[in-house]
């Protein structure tokens, strides 16, 4: 029996299995089919209506493809545009990879179990598409690769599966945006992502979410980092959703492997964000850092982090800062687990409000109270992310800047 059949079988068994955390979504209410989108050439992409281009831009996707090494663009159930400009970098729609390449079976469902819950099951049973992005050994992406998941059809359940592979000694930077059309209000997005960072490779993955008020988002992801590898994951979500729950798991499986997670969340009223992750540090020299900044702004944010140290000479730090503005809830759940002598693990969590002192200090320098407040909020959301290319830092700054108006 082909392995795909086994996955299908497992998925069938798990198709009603609730997730361990997060609000349960009744998937039966959502449609699984949509007309396949029309593929667009580069020129047609540039000619998209301004309103759509703007939406994509806010999610970090530049339709001109300038300053990008490649593009993957999926709308609803199918691929609209897939293009790569750099030697040594591959961008392939997942469905094509599953049909054509044997090697894909070494990666597909290898880190995330297909029977984790009904969301992973749905992604197998009703897979729409997704991307495979791979940097060949030694290849270094000059510019980031951009990937976009766009949802246009209302009440759709979009099921995608992505695989990212940074081969030995390669360097790969990806920016991925998710957005919904202005008319789309309701829907579910299920996104499986499996990241493989091989020996001495470096992968940065920056994800910006712009969903809509009635959307349920269930990413399911996991990463594997080999000796000397670096996995840097940034997540920004400053727009409303109905509910979003994700808990990526990362395994550092060789000495000196490093994982860093940064997330910036702004919660609007009626939205629930349950975001966090787990990192297993298994070898000497492993490093992990989970940093989050959350502003409630009326929403409900749960910021999790779980670091597990299983080897001496590992260092792990968890930092979770929350600012309650205009009501809402911030719930920080930091967990540290040391299993052997010689681990060095720490966490720092603080939930509070803007200190009046800081506002007055800036007012004494000439800012109005509102200007001072927004300066402090912007500073709060401004995390230094070592190793992030300047263009991607600029995209994050843009997203933060953009949300400023909503926060105030």
């Amino acid at each position: 029996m082909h392995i795909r059949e086994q996955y299908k079988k497992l998925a069938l068994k798990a198709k009603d299995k609730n997730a361990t955390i997060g609000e349960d979504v009744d998937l039966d209410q959502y449609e699984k089919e949509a007309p396949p989108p029309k593929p667009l050439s580069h020129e047609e992409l540039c000619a998209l209506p301004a309103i759509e281009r703007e939406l994509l831009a806010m999610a970090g996707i530049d339709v001109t493809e300038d300053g990008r090494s490649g593009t993957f663009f999926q709308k609803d159930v199918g691929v609209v545009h897939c293009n790569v400009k750099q030697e040594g970098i591959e961008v392939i729609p997942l469905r094509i990879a599953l049909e054509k390449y044997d090697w894909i079976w070494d990666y597909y469902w290898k880190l995330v179990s297909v029977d984790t819950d009904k969301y992973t099951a749905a992604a197998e049973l009703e897979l729409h598409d997704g991307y495979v992005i791979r940097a060949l050994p030694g290849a270094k992406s000059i510019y980031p690769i951009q990937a976009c998941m766009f949802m246009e059809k209302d009440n759709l359940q979009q099921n995608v599966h992505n695989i990212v592979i940074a081969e030995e000694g390669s360097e790969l930077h990806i920016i991925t945006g998710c957005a919904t059309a202005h008319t789309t209000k309701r829907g579910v997005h299920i996104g499986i992502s499996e990241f493989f960072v091989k020996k001495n490779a470096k992968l940065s993955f920056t994800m910006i979410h712009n969903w809509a008020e009635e959307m349920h988002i269930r990413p399911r992801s996991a990463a594997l980092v080999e000796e000397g590898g670096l996995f840097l994951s940034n997540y920004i979500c400053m727009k409303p959703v109905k509910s979003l729950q994700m808990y990526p798991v990362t395994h550092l499986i060789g000495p000196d492997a490093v994982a860093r997670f940064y997330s910036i969340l702004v919660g609007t009223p009626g939205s629930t964000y349950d975001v966090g992750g787990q990192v297993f540090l298994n070898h000497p020299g492993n490093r992990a850092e989970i940093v989050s900044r959350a502003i409630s702004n009326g929403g409900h944010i749960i910021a999790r982090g779980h670091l597990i140290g299983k080897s001496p000479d590992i260092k792990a730090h968890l930092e979770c800062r929350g600012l309650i503005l205009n009501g809402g809830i911030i719930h920080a759940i930091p967990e540290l687990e040391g299993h052997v002598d010689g681990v060095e693990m720490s966490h720092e969590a603080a939930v509070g409000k803007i200190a009046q002192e800081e506002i007055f200090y800036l007012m004494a320098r000439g800012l109005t109270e509102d200007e001072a407040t927004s300066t402090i909020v912007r500073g709060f959301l401004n995390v230094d992310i070592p190793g992030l290319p300047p263009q991607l830092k600029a995209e994050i700054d843009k997203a933060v800047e953009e949300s400023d108006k909503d926060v105030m």
Partner: protein
Amino acid sequence: MLVIEDLQVELAGKLILKHIDMEIQPGETHILFGPNGSGKTSLLMTIMGFPQYKVVAGRIYFKGVDITNMPTHERASMGIGMSFQRPPTLRGLKVRQLIKICAGGREDIDVEGMAKAVNFEDFLDRDVNDGFSGGEIKRSELLQLMAQNPDLLLFDEPESGVDLENMELVGKTIARLLGQDFQVKVKGDKPIRQQKRERRKMGLVITHTGHILDYVTASKGQVLYDGVLSCVENPREILKCIANIGYEECVRCILGNNTRN
């Protein structure tokens, strides 16, 4: 000109300043002494307009305008600036950004050049006050005031925590901020006597040690004690007096002198 009339200030329900009268004329710098907890910082904060310092009586005028109830940022734009004793840390805000804010958004300011003047170039890309040492905080405050260029400068213990080498830098910078760095550099510069006459900057400096007096010419010294400004004297005399017989005796003696006059 800064004029304070019969000022009473409450902090957290407690009357800290009971009766303050003060007048700083254009070109004058006053030195403020007083024991720990006497309310010196509170007086500066009140002039700056921090709302937790509640003015329960009296008035404050600046440049002829009643600013008693004016919000802090408007006082700043009228030309009042302050160097803080213990400023807060602003995470995520870089010193460079703050200097631009202080300059009121003027694009032409030379941030690097200014930073160089206070030996602070290496700090421009650090978060404001985050992990700064005592002396570094003082230089950061001075740099902000340089960008702000106010007419009335309030210095809250600018020399505390500053090492001997940096003291000269801090002292000279304060003198410059107060427009006291008189010099005839090129022919055609106004004579020093005229420069002194035309000086408009006003200063109010809190000090415990008086080191600042080696760099700054002060017109008057005052002692804040028990919520009241007790005397007006030559600051060096006051310092000597405090050193010799302590605040309490010193204030009594000078008060006696004043009444005899």
